[in-house]
């Protein structure tokens, strides 16, 4: 069984600011409490295409799983939650002003597969001041015979948690946009 859902959001900030905030989402000190399931973030590779300007970044994001149902906990040797490595690939096109972020888990794929794709682009109604965000998430629990009975439960719990976290993620991006805006107004007034 697969759970899939799409979320959309409009940021009342220009594309360059929103994508800056999106990059900072996991590393900003203000995010450490609201995104507390994120344990560690590393950049693994980056490349800038000199002729097109496309920037590609790969990061690892290590997260805590939601607490596991009892039976699964026993099967995994008494651990009540797991540490999962995810890989996030971001491609930014500064000319066409698009940012595409895809995240999937690399650990525990025998158990669960999570794929998330997000897209940030200037909002067609007000491209200079608003940014459209769209996110598609797919979660699939592998029907391992031993855990088939509880797989559905894990899946729904993960889905719930994912929805909560992407909501929190958007709040963090909004907050970072706020302070980036304040910063840019300050530096502008300092220049004039």
């Amino acid at each position, binding site marked *: 069984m697969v759970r899939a859902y799409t979320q959309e959001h409009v940021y009342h900030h220009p594309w360059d600011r929103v994508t800056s905030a999106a*990059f900072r989402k996991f590393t900003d000190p203000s995010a*450490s409490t609201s995104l*507390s399931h994120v*344990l560690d973030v*590393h*950049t693994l590779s980056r490349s800038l295409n000199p002729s097109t*300007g496309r920037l590609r970044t790969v990061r*690892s994001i290590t997260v805590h799983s939601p607490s596991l149902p009892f039976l699964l906990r026993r099967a995994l040797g008494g651990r009540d939650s797991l540490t999962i490595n995810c890989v996030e690939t971001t491609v930014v096109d500064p000319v066409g002003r698009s940012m595409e972020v895809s995240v999937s888990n*690399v650990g525990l794929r025998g158990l669960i597969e999570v794929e998330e794709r997000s897209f940030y682009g200037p909002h067609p109604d007000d491209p200079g001041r608003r940014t459209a965000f769209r996110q598609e998430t797919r979660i699939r629990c592998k029907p391992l015979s031993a855990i088939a009975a509880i797989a559905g439960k894990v899946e729904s719990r993960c889905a719930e948690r994912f929805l909560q976290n992407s909501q929190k993620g958007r709040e963090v991006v909004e907050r970072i946009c706020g302070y980036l805006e304040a910063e840019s107004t300050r530096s502008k007034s300092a220049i004039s």
Partner: protein
Amino acid sequence: MTRKSAGKKSYTSPCADVRDAYHDCFNRWYSEKFSKGQWDKEGCVSEWEKYRACLFQNLEDKNLRRYLEDETSSHTDTNTANKSVDGEDTTK
């Protein structure tokens, strides 16, 4: 009850310092230059080199290491690739 910041620290890798220096630099470069259309020059090159060297030494997870090494192979023009590219001679 959720004063778990100490627990969180235990996951911090030996590369945390160079990582933070790189991310700070990158975030600034991205918002001040790249996203504003100045993409002709890649920013934070020395920070990135230091950080990457540290990851190469310390990153143990095989799944993640693959991504580090991927980049090297796509950037090598030299013959350091130890991969089984058998048809090498047919290219010449």
